[in-house]
């Protein structure tokens, strides 16, 4: 439990606690519309209707904006025809399950007068109650009447009331008001001429941030009473959400996004050269990194930067194949600490970072270096030029390069190449003692591997030292702040937010680089809910 210096300076302040400085002003982002991710969709269904409801279907992939998070991409994508086909099929399938004999009593609290005929009153009651949970706000009169009429039509065709409301429920689940999180706004009483998120929209934004799902009943109630507009009630809800186990799921989703883990589905390694990269290993690989992160940042509430130097992690028997250490526990995960002479310390030396940023059959220092720069330091690496002259690479007398460092000599010496490759290659070369699946090695083709280099002027000789250089690099902590905020608002960060972000970075430092403190600051801030006017936004 951190000591929060959240005493507000008020007129009646008696205590001599330090006053919280006024929050840095920020522009906020315009009101937007964010498509639910597959995870959010599934979480919503499980939370609203129960975990035993089967959700089977394909979701349109989210496009990752250049140098951005998938979370930000949700504000740019829509639903394709193939995607809606799936969404509609899923909607009807879910509705069918919710209203089947085994489930319906929990949701349909009224009985129709005649099971074969429409019953508008009962239908309306039903749609109002589930609709509020699905749309994350009460349905408007029009919306209710439209569903009731639809259920009526369907009942008349099918001769079955349940069938009618099932299809009506399906239409709620296929609705853009469910599939998208729409920022509904109203005039802001505190800022003349500006708009603010409605209480329900606030509740949604907060819930998707901290729990990656739709607002629960208590949060919806806080919105219904407008209590959520008060700083005190907001803080109370934030603390409630942050104390719950669900926070871990959201943190996992965040880091999976930040580390680009979705690309792992298509990761393969050459089976002849690397037979140990079996399915169990591939499955455990990202999980190890996520567990390490969760343990360090949530369970231990540790310093974010130490993720790059910590030797504490978790391991399974399958991963034992890669790390080549004994794993006493036969099944499942057990805590594991690398020995001091293992050569492993920090996320960069865990299998996920090494294998995911590497080719099928050999390593790629450039890819590993690029991954560190872009994902963990938030530094964009320029794309290679289209007109590279490869004669240089070709024109060697005897291309008998033994180590990767030798092969990449051209990257470092040719003028057109070096400018960019010096940003990436030294980092990756510092990790060459781990092959493309992350197994440790000291030599390549008989020649010893040299892992010395420097990161923005800080020299290192081993991967552990590289980890320390990353830890101490100011971009590391500031990148996390950027990313978590981008994740929270699910929008690319606007220029007008820069000062606010800077203040967050400073506070992050003051809080000992603790993630929970950072998340809480964001969640209770005004900035997080700030709506910027959009050009041409009508209402």
């Amino acid at each position, binding site marked *: 439990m951190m000591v929060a210096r959240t005493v507000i300076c008020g007129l009646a302040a008696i205590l001599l606690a330090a006053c919280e400085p006024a929050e840095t002003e920020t522009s906020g982002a315009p009101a937007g519309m964010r498509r639910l991710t597959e995870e959010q969709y599934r979480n919503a269904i499980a939370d609203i209707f129960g975990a035993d409801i089967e959700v089977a279907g394909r979701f349109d*992939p989210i496009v990752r904006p250049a140098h951005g998070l998938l979370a930000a991409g949700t504000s740019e*994508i829509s639903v394709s025809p193939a995607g809606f086909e799936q969404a509609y099929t899923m909607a009807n399938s879910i509705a069918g399950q919710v209203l089947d004999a085994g489930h319906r009593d929990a949701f349909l609290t009224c009985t129709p007068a005649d099971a074969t005929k429409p019953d508008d009153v009962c239908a309306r009651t039903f749609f109002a109650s589930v609709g509020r949970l699905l749309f994350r706000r009460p349905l408007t009169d029009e919306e209710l009447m439209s569903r009731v009429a639809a259920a009526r039509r369907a009942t008349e065709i099918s001769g079955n009331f349940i069938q009618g409301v099932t299809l009506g429920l399906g239409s709620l689940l296929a609705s853009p008001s469910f599939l998208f999180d729409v920022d509904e706004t109203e005039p802001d009483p505190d800022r003349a001429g500006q708009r603010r998120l409605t209480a329900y929209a606030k509740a949604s934004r907060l819930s998707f941030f901290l729990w990656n799902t739709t607002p629960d009943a208590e949060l919806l109630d806080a919105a219904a009473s407008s209590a959520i507009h008060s700083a005190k009630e907001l803080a109370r809800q934030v603390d409630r959400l942050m104390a719950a186990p669900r926070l871990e799921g959201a943190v996992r989703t965040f880091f999976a996004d930040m580390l680009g883990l979705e690309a792992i589905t298509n990761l393969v390694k050459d089976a002849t050269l690397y037979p140990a990269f079996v399915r169990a290993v591939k499955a455990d690989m990202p999980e190890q990194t996520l567990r390490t992160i969760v343990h360090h940042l949530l369970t231990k509430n540790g310093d974010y930067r130490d993720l790059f130097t910590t030797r504490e992690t978790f391991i399974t028997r399958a991963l034992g194949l890669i790390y080549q250490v004994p794993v006493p526990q036969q099944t499942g995960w057990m805590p594991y600490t690398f020995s001091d002479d293992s050569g492993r310390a920090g996320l960069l030396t865990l299998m996920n970072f090494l294998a995911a940023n590497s080719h099928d059959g050999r390593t790629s220092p450039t890819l590993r270096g690029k991954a560190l720069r872009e994902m963990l330091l938030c530094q964009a690496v320029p794309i290679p030029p289209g007109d590279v002259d490869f004669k240089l690479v070709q024109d060697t007398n005897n291309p008998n390069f033994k180590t990767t460092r030798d092969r990449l000599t051209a990257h470092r010496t040719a003028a057109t190449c070096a400018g960019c490759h010096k940003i990436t290659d030294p980092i990756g070369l510092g990790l060459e003692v781990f092959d493309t699946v992350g197994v440790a090695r000291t030599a390549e083709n008989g020649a010893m591997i040299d892992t010395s280099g420097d990161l923005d002027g800080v020299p290192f000789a081993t991967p552990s030292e590289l980890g320390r250089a990353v830890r101490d690099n100011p971009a590391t902590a500031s990148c996390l702040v950027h990313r978590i905020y981008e994740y929270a608002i699910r929008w690319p960060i606007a220029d007008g937010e820069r000062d606010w972000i800077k203040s967050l970075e400073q506070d992050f430092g003051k809080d000992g680089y603790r993630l929970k403190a950072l998340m809480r600051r964001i969640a209770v801030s005004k900035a997080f809910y700030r709506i910027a006017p959009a050009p041409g936004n009508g209402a």
Partner: protein
Amino acid sequence: MTRLADRRWVLKGLLGGGAVTVGLPLLDCRLNGNGTALAAGAPLPTRFGTWFWGLGVTPGRWKPTTLGADYDILPELESVAKYKSKVSILSGFDVLLDGKPNFPHQTGGPAFRCGVAPARLAFPGVSFDTIIADAIGATTRFRSIELSGIAGDDNTLSGRGPGQMNPAESSALALYTRVFGADFADPNAADFKPDPAIMAKQSVLSAVTDERRALEQQLGAADRVRLDQYFTAVRQVENQLTLQLQKPEPLLACKVPKAPPEFPVAHDVEETIHNHEILAQVLAMTLTCNQTKVFNVCINDSASSLTRAGSTTSHHQLTHDEQIDEKLGYQPEATKFIADLMKAWGTFVGILDSIPEGGGTLLDNTLVVAHSDSDFAKVHSITNLPVMFAGAAGGRIKPGVHIDGKGEAVSRLALTAMQVMKVNIDRFGTGSMDTNKPVTELFA
């Protein structure tokens, strides 16, 4: 089979869930004397598709040295040798950058499809296959079908812009299930009853479209566009439901295939080639059964992540790292990948050509535009982009010729294809790729 003197069918009340019974006229009397059209006068559908492969061709091993008909076949085109009269080669057409960067492997493909090179790393516009699908796709269950040989639903060049791409299917079984699964109405089925469940579904969807106005009012311009796309997608499903309530026109050649086996693929070249073949087979019957008229295939991705088992490297790396063999004059391992891809192209053309339809084959009633992202991938060249037109588009196109574009913009080819497919369009492309000149030598 005897010919019936007349057609008889009886339609009983649709609403109220009544059954519709149709006495099926025997199939061959539905066709006109040549078998090239349905008796009612509707011609067999003309299909359009694209077929994309990444990393181009090998200089000196693909482009024919002769022009016009009966062009000579070089090694990388051997697989289409026997279909030569149905395949045209379009060389010498360029992607014009207008000062924009040539993003390695990210410029050529999108530029060909959209008539403009991307200014940043995002799909630069509306792909011309989408324009064709908009024009002809409304009358089939699926507006278009997108397929990928390798794993990854984002391996697609069909769409309207970033975040608005049509995802690709890489599993033949999943494609089969989507097309021939529960919602498939066999056009040759003996009787047809509009399903009351579908009628009910259709009646309910308007509750979704009703929400449009209220939502739009809250959104900014960019979001309104996205909302619009969403409702376009809803319309497509409404369309599908409407079509499912109508008896489909019988199609002689449509035979529901057996479900293909589950075949998990990543990006191993041999697995990809095999996967592509089973996808193509399901696609061919999808087209024959008129479930869609538009398709887009990307066998590998632009930068070609293809690998070969036992090798430490990938197709992409080989094109850049492998030395040109002095004796052969090309990169041996990289070229092997191109050979595999071109063989797959031959397989694809062959599969379309193997289905008899009307008096010819499915290929005769189709136009396939095949193209790559680059010419010589090693240097990312986007001039002289390799392009092929396969099929006769129902007689609208004169295939089997090699035409040299002499540096003209590739957008001319997209315009040609759209006009062949009877899209009402007279110009395509932006900047120096803006053109109103189709390649008329191709028109029949």
